[in-house]
């Protein structure tokens, strides 16, 4: 850490440092872009993976916290850039260095109104174009006078704004068109069988070939981050199940870990084992669903039912212990809500016994099929560099050969005691992403087999104070959700409620990969690529 500090202060003498769980570097905005470039390109730092951007309103100033990881050295650093101007806050964009920032900066602009200089396409991302105000600012007027319920549909905004800084440092507002007038634009969504949720892809076509895609999201945005600011920590847990509902356990695990880290709470071993088993069951069920949806999107409807048949078994296991099949509400601060069902271990063992032969059946039905191979191989290729640049984590990132499994890179809970392999494929095409999921299912079974017989006795939940107050500070925690690295950022001022809670969801990054992956492919490939990236829209529209 000291090494990073030395290096950065050599690059940017104005930077100030704050020790914490990760080194926090505070940089003035004028020096930020140059430092960012150096941080990415310097051989000793090489922070090539931008984990996430969290906008925060500190009242006297506003700004962003960037989390970086170096895939080369495994080091972490966070950077704080802020501005005191509340009328027209401006920061420099880093979207030219990390493409993932294209989306994350639009999100920050949407909620905080921070203008990113040199960002090529600064429109609102989630809210309507005609929305007044920026809802996550602390002085936001939430009354319905400013934003009455709209009865008209939102108009398509075909021109976008970008604030360009010229050589003398003058900032000019420039308008440009998203689609050229002569382009043939097809609207895929918001009601469409294969958008996997309510979102819209405005797809410009040249015959059947895609030239580019404009994503329109926010149809089901619930403002979870804003809601969390008014709720206590145990209450905020409820939302995590409703983001990516296919990784409900992992998301909730992440938030619990973050709060426990802040409280310095020790979780009983039994609870940890149960949590990990639930995570893996969830991952298994998510990958089964992903298999089903991918095959169905490609037209093989029978395979879909095969995937769902086994998923039912997992949901039954969940139902017995958690009392629900979808929004499971199981993990809690300090452990889990209730002890496991008496049949739990046996059910899991039966599932582990069943899965290998069923996996064989899936491969027989779909993987070896000539049509499936033609449809998936070489389609939507994402190179390792692009995957890192776009922060495409999870099975999709590992399909591009990027070993980004948080369970291996930064083991949490009991993952460093478990024997399992990180699956990677090198091709980076849709088939590789599909195969990573299929092979990961075997690893899930392997983990479950190890744990099913070894659930230790003891408490299932630690003693936790009635009213949970986090100390002053900020924390960031990541777990490996079914679709990639899920992160939670909590900033606390010592109150019962978080000052700022940010969920860094993997699906938002996956969405950013759709446009680069699909350019030049056929419209049918868009469906295959979407299915192989396997995003879930509620995770995007948090």
């Amino acid at each position, binding site marked *: 850490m000291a090494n990073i500090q030395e290096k950065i202060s050599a690059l940017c003498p104005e930077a100030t440092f704050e020790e914490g769980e990760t080194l926090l570097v505070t940089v003035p905005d004028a020096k930020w872009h140059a430092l960012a470039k150096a941080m990415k390109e310097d051989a000793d730092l090489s922070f090539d993976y931008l984990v996430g951007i969290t906008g925060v309103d500190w009242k006297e100033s506003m700004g962003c916290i960037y989390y970086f990881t170096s895939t080369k050295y495994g080091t972490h650093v966070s950077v704080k850039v802020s501005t005191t101007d509340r009328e027209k806050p401006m920061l420099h964009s880093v979207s030219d260095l990390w493409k993932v920032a294209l989306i994350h900066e639009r999100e920050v602009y949407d909620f905080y109104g921070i203008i990113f200089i040199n960002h090529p396409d600064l429109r609102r991302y989630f809210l309507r174009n005609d929305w007044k105000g920026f809802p996550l600012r602390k002085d936001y007027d939430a009354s319905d006078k400013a934003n009455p319920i709209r009865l008209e549909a939102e108009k398509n905004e075909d021109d976008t704004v970008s604030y360009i800084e010229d050589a003398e440092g003058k900032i000019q507002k420039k308008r440009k068109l998203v689609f050229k007038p002569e382009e*043939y634009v*097809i*609207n895929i969504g918001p009601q*469409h*069988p*294969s958008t996997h949720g309510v979102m819209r892809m405005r797809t410009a*076509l040249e015959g*059947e070939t895609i030239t580019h895609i404009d994503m329109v999201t926010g149809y089901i945005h619930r403002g979870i981050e804003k809601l969390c600011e008014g709720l206590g920590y145990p209450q905020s847990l409820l939302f995590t199940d409703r983001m990516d509902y296919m990784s409900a356990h992992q998301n909730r695990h992440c938030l619990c870990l973050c709060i426990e880290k802040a409280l310095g709470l020790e979780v009983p071993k039994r609870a940890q084992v149960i949590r990990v088993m639930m995570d893996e069951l969830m991952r298994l069920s998510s990958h089964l669903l992903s298999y089903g949806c991918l*095959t*169905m*999107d*490609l*037209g*093989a*409807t*029978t395979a879909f*039912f*095969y995937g769902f*048949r086994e998923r039912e078994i997992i949901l039954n296991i969940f139902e017995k212990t958690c009392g629900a099949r979808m929004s499971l509400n199981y993990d809690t601060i300090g452990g889990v809500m209730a002890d496991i069902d008496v049949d739990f271990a046996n059910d899991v063992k039966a599932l582990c016994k069943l899965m290998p032969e069923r996996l064989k059946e899936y491969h027989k*039905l*779909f993987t070896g*099929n000539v*049509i*499936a191979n*033609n*449809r998936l191989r070489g389609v939507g290729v994402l190179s390792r560099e692009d995957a890192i640049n776009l922060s495409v984590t999870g099975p999709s990132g590992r399909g591009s050969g990027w070993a980004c499994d948080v369970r291996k890179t930064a083991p949490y809970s009991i993952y460093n005691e478990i024997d399992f392999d990180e699956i990677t494929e090198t091709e980076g095409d849709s088939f590789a992403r599909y195969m990573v999921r299929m092979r990961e299912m075997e690893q899930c079974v392997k983990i479950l087999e190890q744990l099913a017989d070894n659930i230790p006795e003891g408490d299932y939940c630690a003693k936790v104070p009635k009213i949970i107050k986090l100390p002053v500070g900020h924390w960031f925690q990541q777990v490996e959700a079914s679709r990639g690295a899920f992160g939670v950022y909590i900033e606390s001022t010592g109150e019962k409620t978080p000052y700022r809670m940010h969920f860094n969801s993997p699906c938002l990054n996956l969405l950013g990969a759709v446009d680069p992956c699909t350019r030049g492919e*056929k*419209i*049918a*490939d*868009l*469906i295959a690529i979407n299915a192989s990236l396997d995003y879930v829209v509620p995770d995007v529209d948090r």
Partner: protein
Amino acid sequence: MFDFGIVTRWFDQLLCGIMPGWLATTIEGVIIAVALILVYAVLALFYILYERKLCAWFQCRLGPMRVGRWGWMQVFADMFKILIKELIKLRNTDKFLFELAPYLVILASMLSFAVLPWGRGLQIIDFNIGVFFMIAVSGLGVIGILLAGWASDSKYTLVGALRGGAQMISCELSVAMSIMTMVVLAGTMSISGIVYAQEDAWFIFKGHVPAIIAFIIYLIAATAETNRGPFDLPEAEHELTAGYHTEYSGIHFGFFYLAEYLNLFIVSGIAALMFLGGWMPLHIPGCDGFNMVMDWIPSVIWFLGKAFFISFIIIWFKWSFPRVRIDQLLAMEWKYLMPIGLFNIALMTVVVVYGWHF
């Protein structure tokens, strides 16, 4: 084996005895038309249930079970629902063409339905270029699909229709080519002639290697021509929501739906006619006892059974395979199926000229 020709001739003579010839022909025409439409509708209903039950079986499900025993009345419920649904008028459509398209599709399907040999002597028209007529009228359907896509004024339908046009026209070539291969073997284009030529052995056995090649090409190309999975690109539910018929509702949609199911029966019927002997029972030369038993089974059952068997294979395809992409489909057609088909005709000609068939 019972010859339905006896019945039809008796009826014709009866009518001619009491009225002038032109009136008798008109009445016969009307009766046949009504019968045809009835059989068409009933078969469509049967096919919908058949496919639903089969696909449920492939997918570890039960399929429709609630209405009637084993859900057999479900299709009637569905039909009445579609009959009483509103025909939604859309603002920017080309009204005339929009309404015309479903009729064109169903017309093409009915016309080719008319030439199928249902049983011994049970055939509506039997003229010496029957096969030629069949190929010609089945090609009409593509006009309906192109019109539907164009007139709907929607981008999904347009993409679907253009895919449909490209696909159907390409695959018709291979269908025609494999049928021609069998015509070479039969030596006639008359449908009854083709059936009678298979009296001693079905063509698929008689023509051995080239016949089997033609059969496989026919199955693939015919599935593509009827827009069924894995070649259901013009509809492509997951890409174009419903392709060329996205904007249709009520019975207009019903016509497309009906035509699609009946086209499945028609291509199966043609396959049965060309390769499996039409209504001709299974005969093994030399086993007279066995042949006698086979002759006991009515010819209509033979024909339907064969057609349903071929449909079973096509339905099996649909529910197992993923969908191909349009460029892959066209490449398959033009680079593989058609050259192989052309070569196969030559091979069949050689086989016939040298008498190498059974």
